[in-house]
């Protein structure tokens, strides 16, 4: 991987400042888009680039934009989902703290393309420093005429606001994010209607992940074909893989989509730390079903992982070594999801905490026969029956862990 798209400037000092950014040919993409291209061109380009959403679901960004009705009385909104709450994920933080203007470029181009004049960056509440840096970057952009009224003399107006969340994982779900942004309790909404038609303040709304939007400037500058080549035909571009856990060199690695997981762990992250043996890998954030050590010879793209009954998600790779008890992993997973359930719909609210209670009991050495089957039954009842994807996100990893490490968990129950 020679040329990186997102993280090439991460190593540069003070790159978050606009003067440094402009020195490195910053805001070229905005200029190109606003001066040379029509919104239709940009939509075509993004569609052709096969840019799939980086938040987890992998929905093509161009298609999502095209759902927004062109002629409406109400204002349209762009919401940038920077509520990076998935355990193991830290890619957006790097983008926003090291290269905030790249994100702003993406926001400006997207807004221009869809016809949006107000954009919100919903940032995770814990990212205080990042939020401050982002706000600084925005004010710099305003000063330099990249935001505000009549951007670059093109007649296009755009205002960008940073909204800091209050720490709820559920607010990373797009409709809950909208509710939270409206000032309400962050509960997911019933879909349909989708946000593209009725979203923020009952208006059409585009919601995209930070990483997704940060890819836009490169597509505009270098074209869809170039972008496509960076990844797979159906799944263009690169991804930032956040590797954590017992590896020698944890961190973020921007690699093309479809890179082998084995290579990521053993080549890029330099293999296991302290000479330990690999036990399992969570390939896409905590909600992705776990992979056993012998399953990691796999291409890291949406479809391959789905075929392997897992998912790419936010591409956060968590590496688990042989000394880690799988029960602890299960405990962490269930505790997290029972804690983060919003409490709106029944299966997630009660199911996740029920499973957590059973797992905690097993951890206390009070496991009973039938507990594991009970967990499977409960998780299956959550799966697919909830209002928002959080229920699935809770149920899938639990089912996968029990399916793949049943014997180990049973040994805890019987002891």
């Amino acid at each position, binding site marked *: 991987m020679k040329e990186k798209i997102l993280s090439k400037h991460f190593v540069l000092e003070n790159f978050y400042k606009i003067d440094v950014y402009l020195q490195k040919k910053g805001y070229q993409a905005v200029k190109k888009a606003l001066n040379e291209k029509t919104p239709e061109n940009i939509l075509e380009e993004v569609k052709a680039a096969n840019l799939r959403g980086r938040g987890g679901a992998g929905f093509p960004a161009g298609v999502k934009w095209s759902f927004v009705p062109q002629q409406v009385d109400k204002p349209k909104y762009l919401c940038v989902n920077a509520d990076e709450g998935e355990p193991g994920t830290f890619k957006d933080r790097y983008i926003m703290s090291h290269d905030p203007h790249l994100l702003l470029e993406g926001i400006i181009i997207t807004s221009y393309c869809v016809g949006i004049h107000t954009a919100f960056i919903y940032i995770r509440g814990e990212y205080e420093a990042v939020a401050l840096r982002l706000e600084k970057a925005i004010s710099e952009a305003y000063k330099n005429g990249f935001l505000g009224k009549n951007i670059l003399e093109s007649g296009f107006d755009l205002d960008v606001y940073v909204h800091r969340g209050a720490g709820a994982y559920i607010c990373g779900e797009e409709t809950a994010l909208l509710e939270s942004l409206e000032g309400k309790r962050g509960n997911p909404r*019933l879909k349909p209607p989708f946000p593209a038609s009725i979203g923020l303040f009952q208006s059409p709304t585009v919601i995209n992940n930070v990483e997704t939007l940060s890819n836009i400037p490169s597509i505009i500058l270098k074209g869809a074909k170039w972008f496509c080549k960076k990844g797979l035909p159906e799944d263009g571009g690169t991804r930032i893989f956040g590797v954590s856990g017992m590896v020698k060199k944890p961190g973020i690695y921007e690699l093309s989509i479809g890179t082998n997981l084995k290579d990521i762990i053993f080549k890029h992250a330099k293999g296991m730390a302290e000479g330990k043996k690999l036990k399992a890998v969570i390939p896409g954030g905590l909600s992705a079903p776990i992979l056993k050590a012998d399953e990691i010879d796999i291409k890291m793209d949406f479809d391959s992982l789905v075929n392997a009954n897992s998912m790419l998600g936010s591409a956060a790779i968590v590496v688990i070594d042989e000394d880690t008890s799988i029960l602890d992993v299960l405990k962490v997973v269930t505790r997290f999801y029972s804690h983060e359930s919003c409490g709106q719909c029944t299966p997630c609210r009660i199911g996740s905490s029920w499973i957590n209670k059973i797992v905690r009991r097993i951890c206390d050495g009070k496991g009973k026969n039938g507990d594991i089957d009970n967990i499977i*039954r409960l998780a299956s009842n959550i799966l697919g029956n909830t209002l928002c994807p959080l229920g699935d996100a809770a149920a899938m990893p639990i089912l996968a862990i029990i399916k793949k490490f049943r014997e180990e968990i049973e040994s805890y129950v019987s002891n």
Partner: protein
Amino acid sequence: MINIFIDDKPFKVKEGTTVLKAAEEAGIAIPHLCFHSAFPPEGSCRMCLVEIEGLPKLELACSTQVREGMKVSTRSEKVIEARKGVLEFLLAEHPPDCPICDKAGECKLQDYYEEYGLFDNRFRESKEKKQKNVKIGKSLILDQERCILCTRCVRFLRDITKTRELGVFNRGLHSEINTYNGEPVNNNYSGNLAEICPVGAITDSDFRFKTRNWFLKEGESICPLCSRGCNIYIESHKGFARFPVPKRVYRIKSRENHEVNGFWICDLGRYGYSYLDEGRLDKICVNNGKGNLTWQECVVSLTDEIKKLHSAKKASRIALILNLWLSNEELFLIKKIFVDDLGVKNIYFVDSSGGETDDFLLTSERCPNKRGAQEIGYDLKPLDSENLMNKTDLLLIFGMPAYDPNNLAEIKALFENVKTKIYFSSHSDELCSLADIVLPTALIPEKEGSLTNVDGIVQKFLQVLEAPGECRPEWEVFVDLGRELGININYYKQFNTPEVVLKEMRKEISFFENKSE
């Protein structure tokens, strides 16, 4: 109209309806807890999951709109399993309070458990402790443990009363309904919260622990406490073979009628039912020393009195003071007898003290049939005692059932100047000892008839309670009186039910002509 298939049976439904509504119209019940027709779907309880052909996941019946050719199955194994799963979740953290819960018997959770579950409890963990006895309003008690977070109450206060006293607090399993900063629910429609709560989380302290709801008999009636004429259910208890119960009526519930009151009734109508049982007059009182009289004898002596005055051409010395609790039929009969047959001109109305209106259901007229009296042709003169003093020999007066007349002193003064005073009353009050003959009358739930509400909607009501003691409905008395008077016997002979009277009214008064109910 579009075609859909529910459980392999074809149905034609209107476009834009939801699967739940369509199934309901087709007679297939889909279980639901958070959905209420008055609010937009919430989709949080997950009980109404159905299988729709072509879709990978189960869909919510309450929010999914029908499409042409849609094939819905509400009874497939997958659906039943999902319902059972959801039900198990709901019941896992639900306290086993049914023995002390007022909702038991009409609780949806219980019903669904009977229908789908009857499974063993597999929840062996400790249940979440929450507050069990929170007073959240004048007559509302919240049990957070029983709550299933359907948020019907929150949405009612958000969408209907717009007062927003309740909200969901905390997250996940710790979510709970509560008031903001302890500010109680304080509006005139708070009683509806206990009614729409699908479980026993919000209970009504007016009904709390008084009895169990399966002992109650539900009767359809109309609320007479203001001129809106809200449709209600009166729930009464007949007592046990050996042990009588202290009161007849235990609870008033709202009855759905979209023309009048939607799903709701106000607290005034809900809690103001004590007049049905308290202070009732159940015997004829004769104060002029004629001894005990039966109804028949009273009617005969009243007739004699009237005949005497009529034949002496002294009909102007007869006066009537009516109230607006009389039904259309009764007002009509009185008009026929006294105005048309006898030519009485002195007809006045006791004034009920009006009240505040709240711009939703409650009107300022605290009597049920003002519009009816107007349409029948009374000019609703308030009592003018100056005009009656020393000019009246016979006075017929109708007491106010639930409120005191605000011109009581005036009536009392008038009583001293009138020779014969006949008092029709359902309750025993001060006037009972002053009148010559006091005749006990039935209240609206104890008789049949119709009322005209403030918007001119004519609504029939049926008898739902037994009239106590010697109480009789006024229409019966006036039919008897009409026959006894002998001026127009055959005309009054046809009236054996209020329905016949209403039919006659339709013929004679154009306003009632096209009013069906």
